[in-house]
């Protein structure tokens, strides 16, 4: 079984930067353009705030935005800017409070609802996350991202693969070249045992990633998993590529370990599993697999040590 909790938090980092901080580019969909604050004397502050956000000076931006919220308490824009800066500073509560203020003052953009939805997700408020994503859809029916995030949610925490596919289909209909939506649809299909559909989506996501020169390891991992039973040689190549592109993901090393074990390369598989355990130290199943491998290799002491750790982790961690 591959990783069940999808790295939504990792994905939203890039998403937010490119989608939300495009001050002065009013034509770009879903972006914020700070409106005049009602005082020409503050136009310098506004320009400075935009500069700070664009140059990722989040702490300074938060400070200035906060000052502007006090001077202009009825204008939603500084609250939005404050929420954005706090989000980047990792301050979820401050993000939510600032964005809710902006919302109460009448701001009703897709960008606001998406950012607020993500902030709710970060504090594990899934009901409110869904509410805001639905509002983002209402604000901009053509935007694929709320559908993508809802699909991602239902494929992991929401635990409803059919619903996830429905949302991902909507996302792909609006943005046919979005490799992440396509990959996650493939993931859901694989989990639903629709292997040929999954394979087609993984291959499409790989094609799109390669064409845009983006480093996206997950579809390679998916291909390796799908091919594990039918074509070990190809599975090995995809697994190697997944590790090469995403060495920080334990699930990539895990798929390579599975391939190498099947190929009879036990010590190489053990090395990959050790890397999995290093990258994700609380996952019990890696230690059980290491226990099995070490037993096969005749390393009884190491095997027993792994079994002990497996039992300890199983007793300690809740199954998510």
């Amino acid at each position, binding site marked *: 079984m591959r990783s069940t909790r999808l790295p939504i938090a990792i994905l939203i980092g890039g998403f937010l930067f490119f989608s939300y901080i495009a001050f002065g580019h009013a034509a770009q969909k879903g972006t914020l353009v700070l409106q005049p604050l009602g005082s020409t004397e503050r136009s310098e502050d506004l320009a400075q705030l935009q500069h700070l956000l664009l140059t990722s000076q989040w702490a300074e931006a938060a400070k200035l935005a906060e000052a502007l919220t006090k001077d202009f308490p009825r204008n939603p824009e500084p609250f939005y800017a404050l929420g954005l800066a706090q989000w980047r500073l990792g301050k979820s*509560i401050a993000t*939510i409070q600032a964005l*809710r203020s902006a919302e109460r003052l009448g701001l009703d953009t897709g960008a606001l609802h998406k950012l607020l939805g993500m902030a709710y997700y970060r504090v594990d*408020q899934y*009901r409110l996350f869904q509410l805001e994503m639905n509002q983002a859809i209402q604000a901009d029916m053509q935007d694929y991202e709320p559908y993508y995030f809802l699909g991602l949610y239902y494929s992991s925490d929401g635990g409803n693969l059919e619903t996830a596919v429905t949302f991902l289909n909507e996302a792909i209909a609006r943005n046919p070249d979005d490799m992440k939506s396509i990959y996650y649809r493939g993931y859901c299909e694989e989990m639903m045992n629709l292997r040929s559909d999954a394979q087609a989506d993984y291959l499409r996501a790989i094609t799109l990633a390669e064409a845009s020169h983006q480093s996206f390891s997950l579809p390679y991992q998916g291909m390796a998993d799908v091919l594990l039973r039918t074509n070990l040689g190809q599975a090995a190549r995809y697994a190697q590529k997944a590790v090469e592109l995403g060495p920080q993901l334990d699930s990539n090393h895990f798929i390579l370990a599975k391939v190498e074990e099947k190929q009879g390369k036990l010590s190489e598989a053990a090395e990959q599993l050790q890397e999995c355990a290093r990258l994700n*130290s609380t996952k019990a199943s890696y230690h059980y697999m290491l226990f099995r491998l070490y037993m096969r290799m005749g390393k009884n002491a190491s095997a027993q040590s792994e079994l002990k750790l497996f039992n300890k982790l199983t*007793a*300690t*961690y*809740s199954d998510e």
Partner: protein
Amino acid sequence: MNNKKLSWFMSCMLFVSFLLGTARFRSFAQMGPFLSPLQVPQAKTEEEYDAYLEILTSENPEQTVARVKSFARNFPKSQLLGLAFEHEMLAYQRLQEWFNVLHSGQKALQLEPRNVMTLLTVAAAIINGIHNQTIDHSLLDEAEQYAVESIQELGTMTIPHQLSLDRWERIRGDMEGQAHEILGEIAVIQGNNQKARKEFEASIRANPDPHGVQFLRLGLLSESLGNDEQASQAFGRAIELGPESVRNLARRELQKIQSGWAGQAMTRDKQTVKTTPPK
């Protein structure tokens, strides 16, 4: 233990409970209730969550208490109510209003009966309340029950994957240590000093990073029982570990023991002089 020693010992314990227990118990509030993401109580509306965040961002404990009361009034069926009462309990703890800590903690426990941090805070509040005579001795059994339950819960509870094993083992050890400290204090109040010593020793053993206050408690008890050697060792460790308020008290007690030794040695020397036959 004679009455004078007992009263001195109890007043030291009172100092330790008030000034140190509070700060340490408060630190657990930062850890949250150790829930996995899928177990986190869900707000039904954004207004409900706004009100909950208002509680979290209160500027002082009085404001927290007022906001929790308002939250409970406006959202009586909220899934977040147990957590809100927990914050109210911690606010009263900062105000050192032990009876109110107990009351809020009991409300929190009705909704989240397995919350170890709440169990420990309420148990400690009962002890503190007994020390400053705002809570009746009859609640001592309840405090003991909470402490025992917290140890049982710590033995079986599971935690989310976000917390590393090493970090969890330290937190668990610290909490278990506090539960034994509470049981030790209960034993002291009940006059069962042998049990108290065992519990204070267990509190140090359970904690991978024992606190100065745990050694201070053991030192004070050993000193009152006349075991100066164990007391000196414990005070020495309390001085090493601190913080400053613990260090000062431990130093004072250690000096008392050492000056007692010096006095005894001087008396011995004088006797030696007297008894030494002339050459």
